């Protein structure tokens, strides 16, 4: 007997126990979820993960409630943009969006725009990183390429809204919280650089047709990337690029054309649709209705579709007489139904399916239009008005295409450049009203916001032009002190 033997005698079982311990603390994986590695092991799984990016954008994450207002891509951009600009009024009241009196304490729906857009970005980043990390042979190159491009497109799409609503925003390009938790705001110009890069990547790799949506226009393709790139270039003032990209879409007449009957523009897979988001008709409170359909179409009972906003007189009165968009896309109802003085209250009627007529679990008639051809004409017209492509005459020609469809006469070719500029702005207002906050962005972008908005009665007293950017949600600043609030908000 010696000490060594004793030491071995004592320590050996401990070492054995230790080795066994590793096994003793290894558990099976959870059953109701799978790991990133598994999620990107096959084409089908990865496609499901990408569907997990699109679905919450329009549907939220639950089947049981009304998903309007759950995200920037579920009607919220339209709502907040509409209130903040001169399109929408709160029915029987006001809110700080409508009065442009937002404060530093924030506003719920503004916060939801932020969180939902970043959630979409996180999900897209998850797909991009998941595919890149996947070594599975069952995830094929063609699918890798397509899905990565789709994710980049969606990421660019979400950043486009963030940068326009909030200005400088943190540019999160990874799911690793260690890298993002203490980010500062990235200058808008750099965010735009990333948007352009993502869109170019997407443009290169996305399918040209509608294969991945099985013929439906619900998965962005090459032209969706092109159309968004056209918009981004326009916003950046790169008019030649904007016109070029718009032309690419417009000239693809085999896939895209203007729907002449205005009542059919927003139908699912309409020829005018470049990209639509598809709602899940099994959602209890929404069924076959789109977020805007359910929100705008009045219903004489409480609950969903209660008339909670109406079109402003500024908007209703802005239409030229005879504009078919006024007749087909605007409707009105009697206020006495809702306990207010009798009289007409106007509402947007682009979507025809809403509270009164949706079918739970039925076949959708309409999808939610995210990008459509008419905007491409307007982008090109604006770029041309700024001297690109064919210049003023080309701009007038493009505007007249839309005016023609709206039953209006052509703009005369001899107008001044100022008048042309106003005509572009007016045409954008009439064509794109109550769609995705276009008007709100246009007013600011085109330098009209101060004059138009500060004069409106409902917005008195005018709080100041700092209201053109929304305040960053306070909780975000609490959780990340490197974020600095937009100027003006206290």
């Amino acid at each position, binding site marked *: *007997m010696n*000490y060594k033997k*004793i030491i071995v005698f004592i320590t050996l079982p*401990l070492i054995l126990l230790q080795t066994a*311990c590793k096994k003793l*603390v290894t*558990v*099976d*994986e*959870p059953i*109701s*979820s*799978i*790991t*990133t590695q*598994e999620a990107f092991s096959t084409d089908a*799984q990865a496609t*499901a*993960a990408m*569907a*997990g990016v*699109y*679905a*919450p954008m329009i*549907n939220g*994450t*639950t089947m049981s409630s009304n*998903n309007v207002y759950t995200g920037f891509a579920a009607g919220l951009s339209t709502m907040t943009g509409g209130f903040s600009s001169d399109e929408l009024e709160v029915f029987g009241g006001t809110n700080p969006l409508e009065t442009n009196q937002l404060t530093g304490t924030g506003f719920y729906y503004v916060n939801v725009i*932020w969180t939902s857009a*970043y959630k979409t*970005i996180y999900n897209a980043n*998850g797909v991009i990183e998941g595919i890149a990390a996947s070594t599975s042979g069952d995830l094929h190159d063609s699918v890798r390429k397509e899905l990565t491009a789709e994710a980049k497109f969606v990421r660019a799409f979400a950043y486009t809204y963030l940068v326009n609503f909030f200005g400088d925003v*943190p540019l*999160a390009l990874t*799911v690793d*919280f*260690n890298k*993002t938790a*203490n*980010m500062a705001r990235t200058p808008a110009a750099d965010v735009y650089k990333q948007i352009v890069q993502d869109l170019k990547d997407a443009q290169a790799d996305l399918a040209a047709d509608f294969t991945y*949506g099985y013929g*439906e226009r*619900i998965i962005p393709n090459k032209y969706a990337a092109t159309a968004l790139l056209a918009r981004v270039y326009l916003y950046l003032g790169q008019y030649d690029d904007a016109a070029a990209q718009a032309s690419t879409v417009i000239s693809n007449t085999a896939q895209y054309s203007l729907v002449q009957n205005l009542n059919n523009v927003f139908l699912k897979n309409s020829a005018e649709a470049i990209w639509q988001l598809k*709602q*899940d008709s*099994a959602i209890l409170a929404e069924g076959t209705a789109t977020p805007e359909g359910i929100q705008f179409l009045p219903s004489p*009972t*409480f*609950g*969903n579709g209660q008339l909670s906003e109406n079109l402003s007189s500024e908007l209703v009165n802005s239409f030229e007489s005879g504009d078919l968009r006024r007749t087909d896309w605007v409707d009105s109802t009697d206020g006495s139904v809702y306990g207010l003085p009798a009289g007409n209250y106007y509402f947007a009627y682009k979507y025809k399916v809403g*509270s009164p007529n949706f079918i739970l679990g039925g076949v959708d008639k309409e999808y939610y239009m995210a990008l459509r051809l008419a905007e491409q004409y307007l982008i090109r017209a604006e770029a041309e008005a700024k001297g690109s492509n064919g210049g003023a005459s080309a701009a007038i020609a493009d505007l007249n295409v839309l005016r023609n469809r709206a039953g209006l006469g052509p703009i005369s070719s001899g107008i001044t450049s100022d008048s042309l500029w106003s005509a572009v702005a007016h045409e954008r207002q009439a064509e794109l009203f109550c769609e995705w906050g276009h008007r709100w962005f246009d007013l600011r972008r085109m330098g009209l916001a101060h004059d138009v908005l500060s004069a409106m009665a409902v917005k008195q007293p005018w709080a100041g032009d700092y209201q053109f950017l929304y305040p960053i949600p*306070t*909780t*975000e600043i*609490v*959780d*990340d*002190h490197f*974020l600095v609030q937009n100027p003006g908000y*206290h």
Partner: protein
Amino acid sequence: MAALSGLSSESRTLTKTRLIMRLIAVLPTIVLLNVHASGMGQSVTLSGKNVPMKKVLSSVEKQTGYFVFYDAELLSDAKPVSVEAKGMPLERFLDEIVRDQPFTYRIANKTISLVWRRMAADAPAVTAPPIVLEDRPVLALISGTVRGPDGRLQAGVSVMVKKTKKGTTTDRNGSFVIAAKQGDILVFSCIGFATQEIAVGKETSLGEIRMKAAVNELDKTVVIGYGTTSKRLNTGSVSTVDAADLEKQPVMNVLLALRGLVPGLVVTPTSGYASSPVKMLIRGRNNINTLVSSDPLVLIDGMPITTLNLDGTDQSNGANILPNLLRYGIGNTPTGGESPLFGLNPKDIESISVLKDADATAIYGSRGANGVILITTKRSRTRTTDYNVNVSEGISKVLRHYALTDVHQYVAMRREALMNDGYPVNEEFAPDLTVWDTTRNVDWQKALWGGTGKVTNVSTGISAGSGNTSFRLNGNFGRQTEILTISGGSQAINLAMSLDHHTNDGKFITSFSSVYTNGSTSEVAQSGQPMTLPPDAPPMYDSKGGLNYAAWAAAGLQLEGQFPFGSLLQRTKTNTNTLNTNLTLNYRPIKGLEAKVSIGYRSSQNLTQSTNPIAAQNPFNSYNPPTGTATFTGVESTGWIIEPQLNYALDHAGPGRLTILLGGSDQYSTSRYNVENGTGYTNDILLRSIINAPIIAAYDAYGQYKYAGVFGRVNYDIDNKYILNINGRRDGSSRFGPGKQFGNFGSVGGAWILSDEKWFQRILPSYVSFFKLRASYGVTGSDGVADYQYLTQWASGTISGLFPGYGGIARPLESQNAVNQNFHWQANKQLNEGLEIGFLDESRITLVLEHYLNSCSNQLLSYPTAAFTGFTKVTANWTADVHNEGWELTLNGKIIDQKDFTWGANMNISINKNKLASYPNIQNTPYYTTYLVGKSLSEAYLYHYLGVDPLTGQYAVEDMNHDGAISSGQGNYPPMSPANDNRVAINLAPKFTGGMTTNFTYKGMGLSLLFDFVRQMGKNAYYSIGLPGQALNNVPLEVYYNHWQKPGDHKQFAKFASGNSFNYGFITGAINFGASDGVYSDASFIRLSNLSFFYNLPAKTAKRMGMKGCNFYINTQNPFIFTKYKGVDPDLQSFAMPQPKIITGGVSLNF
């Protein structure tokens, strides 16, 4: 030990650490030396010429581990020895050395006794008949057998000659042999028994010695981790609550019975429902995240309840939800979930030990960070057959009422408010005054929770023992209905069993225990709020018995959620089955060595059914006719644990007694739940089954938890005077990612009983009978996060249902959690110092004073992140270091202890100071604007309320920074920053807590009172008043009597406002008031938490009636509370259903 070496970072304890390190170095040597000695066995190596006999014998002792007893006289005649032995067998060696001596030797029980040769022939065998010794006092072998109070042979009793301090311990048969002289005093002592002294007479056999249970408070058994000790020898901080204190409390959750009994433990119910979860906090809050629980680890007979020590997961995030769900049940049940200990019968519990410092908890290593609660169930303690029937019946009532306005005051208030705002009193602006019947005057507190609950408890059991076997069987039925005026109740059925058996030779002992509990509840949520129900609000039900939606719709209140009583018909039923079993196999092959394996199994299943019938829904607010909803939930959690242990006790290892424990722990548990959610029911009758649901959504989840560790304890005790206790544990948990699974924990503790030192005895006054100092330092950990948090998880649904599909893909996958692979064990460093003093004989009065300093760093918690990172939280370790420092004082005494009359009292008080000691980079964390380094985590930063502006009648708070605006810094500045106006700091943690018990017995009667008290600040009833004068807003009476009416009034409460018009000043004023010190006030209380009285029928009378005993009793819970609190319940601090008082009477019969 690696973990211990890291302790020196704590500068305060640096010197201590050095000492510890030295001890660490010394101790293994002692261990090895002894292993060496016993390993050598019975052989001796010695060579030398003319070696004195004394030296020879001490070599023998050293080399063999045997002990040599002899009379000094005997050695005086001994001749020096010349010997040449190398590995010589002991007996041969001894033969050799005694050859020429006047004495010879005997070996028994590893003891060598030297006896005169002339005596040797007559020396008794152990079982030999008694032999009468000669008159001359010489050393002889004295034998005997020791039995416990229950009559069982008792091993491990120390037998010592008082004068020489030499001794032995009884073997597994309870027998001992010791060398002693006539007239010597033998001292018999053992943990849990009263020490006995017996003089050696003429007979060499002492026959049977019966030990008595300890009467001395200090010698009572204390259950600690993997063993027992006594208060006298304990080195750690442990509080024990005995069965007697638990049995008399008529509560359905045994945790509630601990209130006021354990210093340093704060127990708070989450609501007044009997089955609701109960929060426990030992020695202050460790976590900076308020959502993370600091609940201690709870073990029932060695089986950890793993579902208890988890919290803080987000209900909205399915993948994280599992542990929380098992604890709280699915969704918003009226009770807010169910406590895992609901239904465990207090009568089945033998004792509850609360382990508080590292010395006590480090043996549970990784999970001891928040303290440990050991629940030990009862076993049979008798050798007779006892049959017991116990029946009690009682009632429960609301304890407190808070005065709100009655209908006249309400109407006056509303009229004044409408007039102030210039509105007419008509149907449009004041339906509550015009449509509703203002002759009604309902006290909604009475109407909602003024009912009388019924409390019933019936239990019966048998406890028996004969031969080698004893057992206990007990059944219990308990039922308690709520004080809600509508139905609701909880019920529990328990079956408890324990079985003990030992073989004839006492080598093999088997113990089994099993507790089965069935708990069921059927509850509806408290409907309506006394604060928001005007006294003239229409009845809950209409004349036909249906819900009175119509009366509310008539007043224009037909929107969803405006009718407050919908939940009356939304019933949630739960049924929980829990089985907790333990089997312990114990083998004692040789004296001092015990091999043991403990196997535990725990299983709990919970079924919950919640319905929202059509009848409960608003018929005035639906486009489509309402449909019914039913949710069926099943939650299952099972787990086993196997813990092999090796215990070795060496009575004479050098100068002291050495006890070594080595053990391993392997635990495995699985949890599963499934939810079936049925919607679109068109008829309420169909709600009973999921199959009738037109639309069904289902979801399930499953989690596994594995946990393994090795642990050891070395306890070294010199003369019961100096005690050193070292614990070490290495643990692995599956909750951590690869490479982070293992952690090391340990502690060092020591005690010094000064009263046993001669020099100290001289200093001590005579009335001090015991004086002990102890200290411990150690590191414990926590893995208290949800399973799988290190894994990326993609799923197609959450608890609230499946995600909507997209395109052709019905089940899109979405990432469920922010992933951090790097989180690891949390480490809590704990320093504890204690002083224990016993006064008077047998320490009739004891005082224990403790001081502790706990430091929790590397906190493992759910950490908030900005939403733009993808998720709003992530599981991670953070650098905040939270200190809890405190004092605990316990005073325990038998003030009067006479045959017919006894009076005992116990008092404890605890003070805890919580401090965020450091937080590097706090400016980059979400807590920058919430916490201040150096201040308590419980500090609330508030505006200073100035009263009502005498000119406007608006609430006014102080503009501390004089910038003309009231601002809390809006998340930009840290608390107390000059930029903020909320600079009144109020600490919401209790300043001190404590309890007081006092027991009187007179002949067969007894009375006991248990008080608990808390000194604290809390949120009062003004918090929810907002703007007084609004419709559907009742206010406390003092608001009505002390409100502003005209310019110049100096009042406490604002001008009445109707709420019909938007007045920015008034609204911000009300909001600021709600965030000011005006809504916080003293919420201290002294509660008589238990009052019980019993009467035992005289034994003779009982016997005549054929009984062994008969006991009548009255037990009351919470009969009184003394408080100045401005609200209903100072514990809950809200207008939710308060805790009731319970009064029961019963009889207990023993046959």
